């Protein structure tokens, strides 16, 4: 049972790899099967254009995981670098960077992402950009707070007294100690990104038709809730399983590394 979150995430990763290797034809339309129930070809039934829901779920998982991986990688890097610089140097650089993060924090992240996506226009690239622009702030605040504390540690001050460069201090003496809280933060952030990607696609600001996305599948599924509940249920349960698994994994990692006490 303890391994369930990891197993769910592994299942979705395997599914995404399968979808990448095997052509499941997620965009193939059969008008005769519009909203038809499950059969031996489509184990989860057909959508509002007669497409295989399972094939589209796997394809949509690929989009979700791509967005989550790319945005996490980019924002983690940017947020960590900015937070580390602010925490290490302090002074006007700290004040400037923190005022910028305050401005971003003043708006609800999702609302800001919607605004960016609306201005930039729909599409996967713009979706990535919108999420990147709003998701780096958490990492920057966390890194800066940790860096302020680490800067006063004796091993850092000893190394500085021995003439180590700022780069060496940050790279070798501070960053390794930041890894654990950042990974836990990243895990929670990833669950939020799955929801954010689905939300933007739900609003029509994410990937464009016919590319599958869980958000757009949810939007379409809700329209047919009365006549084809299997459509929205399959998508909703998939989304919930991935988000819940990532959150539980984050909890597990936090407990394992004892981040609060660290």
């Amino acid at each position: 049972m303890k391994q369930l979150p990891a197993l769910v995430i592994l299942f979705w990763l395997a599914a995404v790899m399968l979808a990448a290797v095997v052509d499941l034809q997620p965009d193939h339309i059969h008008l005769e099967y519009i909203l038809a129930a499950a059969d031996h070809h489509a184990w989860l039934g057909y959508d509002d254009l007669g497409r295989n829901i399972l094939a589209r779920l796997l394809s949509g998982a690929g989009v979700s995981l791509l967005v989550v991986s790319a945005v996490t990688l980019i924002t983690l890097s940017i947020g960590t670098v900015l937070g580390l610089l602010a925490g290490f140097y302090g002074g006007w650089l700290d004040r400037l960077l923190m005022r910028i993060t305050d401005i971003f924090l003043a708006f609800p992240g999702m609302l800001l992402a919607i605004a960016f996506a609306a201005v930039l226009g729909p599409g996967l690239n713009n979706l990535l950009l919108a999420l990147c622009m709003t998701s780096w702030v958490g990492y920057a605040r966390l890194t800066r707070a940790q860096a302020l504390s680490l800067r006063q540690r004796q091993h850092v001050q000893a190394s500085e007294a021995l003439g180590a460069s700022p780069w060496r201090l940050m790279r070798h003496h501070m960053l390794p100690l930041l890894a654990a809280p950042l990974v836990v933060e990243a895990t929670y952030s990833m669950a939020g990104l799955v929801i954010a990607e689905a939300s933007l696609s739900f609003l029509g600001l994410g990937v464009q038709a016919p590319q599958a996305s869980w958000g757009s599948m949810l939007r379409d599924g809700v329209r047919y809730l009365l006549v084809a509940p299997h459509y929205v249920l399959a998508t909703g349960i998939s989304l919930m399983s991935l988000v819940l698994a990532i959150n539980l994994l984050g909890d597990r990692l936090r407990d394992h590394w004892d981040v609060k006490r660290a």
Partner: protein
Amino acid sequence: MALVLSSCTPSAPDTAVHMGLAQAPVNLDPRMATDAASARVNRLLYQALVRFDAHARPQPALADWQQLAADHYRFHLLKPVPRFHDGSAMTAHDVVATYQSMLKPGASPLAAEFSHIRKVWAMDDDTIDFTLDAADPEFPARLIIGILPAHLIAAGHDFSRQPVGSGPLAFVRWRGPLVLQRQSDGQRYVLEEVKDPTVRVLKLVRGEIDLLAGDLPPELLVYLQTQPALKVEHTQGANFSYLGFNLQDPLLANPKVRQAIAHAIDRPAIVRLALVPDSRLAGAILPPEHWAGNASLTPYAHDPQLARQLLQEAGVHLPLTLVYKTSTDAQRVRLATILQAQMREAGIDLQIRSLDWGTFFDDIRQGHFQMYSLNWVGIRTPDIYRLAFHSASVPPLGANRGRLQDAELDALIDQRDWPAATQRIHALLPYVPLWYEGQFVAMRRGLYHYTLAADGNWDGLITVTRNSKNDHAD
């Protein structure tokens, strides 16, 4: 004590007819209304000089007319002349005041229809004369604006929120839902906006609304047909859906490419499987039953092989990538996705751009598109062919959004030779004609005598009756 007791007494049964709308009306001033819901409500609140018969020929409504010269029309109000809902009697001066108020520059978004009126005046209380800058044989068909009381126009009354007309239904109030009342028997109507189609359907099933007309995915209509407390009626529609091309685009300027796209679409399959019942294939903007319709147009058959061959003859390298713009409306995106899949078979890679309505329509008007899809709704006169295809009608002067320039077609339109003009349009293919979507109404079994209209108007409310005994039995 009496107050407490009275509050516990069951309230009188609600006999009003509740109608669920996908979109509430915006403006109840007939001179200003440009959205479909407002136009449909205004038809109930006001009366116009003319109406249309089943073949869309103008017929006398408030007034009969005679053409005194090519540019001079005289209208006589028919007896008995109706009264406005505020009790005042309608006269020719009200007609004159209504049209004069529209002729001022910038006074009405519909003013372009009347820009050629040189003068309008009342000969006496029952006679109105119009003189025009140019001959216009279709002029009576334009006079479908609801007539307003002259004294209220002079007083600057706000008709957009407090309409006063002479139509079969009178305005009661508009705070939240719009409440109307039938003049003949006092039957009340409550028109409330319920945007979400699923919620609208659930409200109808639960009896919170009594009827809804149009604006539902076909699958939900099938669901409604299975509900024992409801009945669904449908009929053929006349609102034209089309796929438009930008003829200034180097690829789409080639007629073979446009023909290839027309042959790549399996319209019969879409009409049969993805549209509401009674939808039918379209050949031209005006349906065949219209007096200017053309039933002899040969449809472009679905033939992906022929489409590929035409593209190769046009010297196009496959796959041909084209951008297709549409709104974010779910049914529109759904149809775009079907077209995309069908065109893929013919070697066309259709890139869908789903844009919010304002951006989408602005792009279309400015010619920033390769392909798009839209509807023509409530079209009654063949002047639509001039508006949509004449060389002189490129936006902002008209709606020739594809920038079609064809001298032969211009001449046919100027000569009002509609069979030849529609044939020429069919050959030039500035639009791929798609379909006329069917019209339907779903209502509770206690309602009767709602008559469906091909253009989806709500005139059925004028005749609808409620059998309260049957309704409660539901």
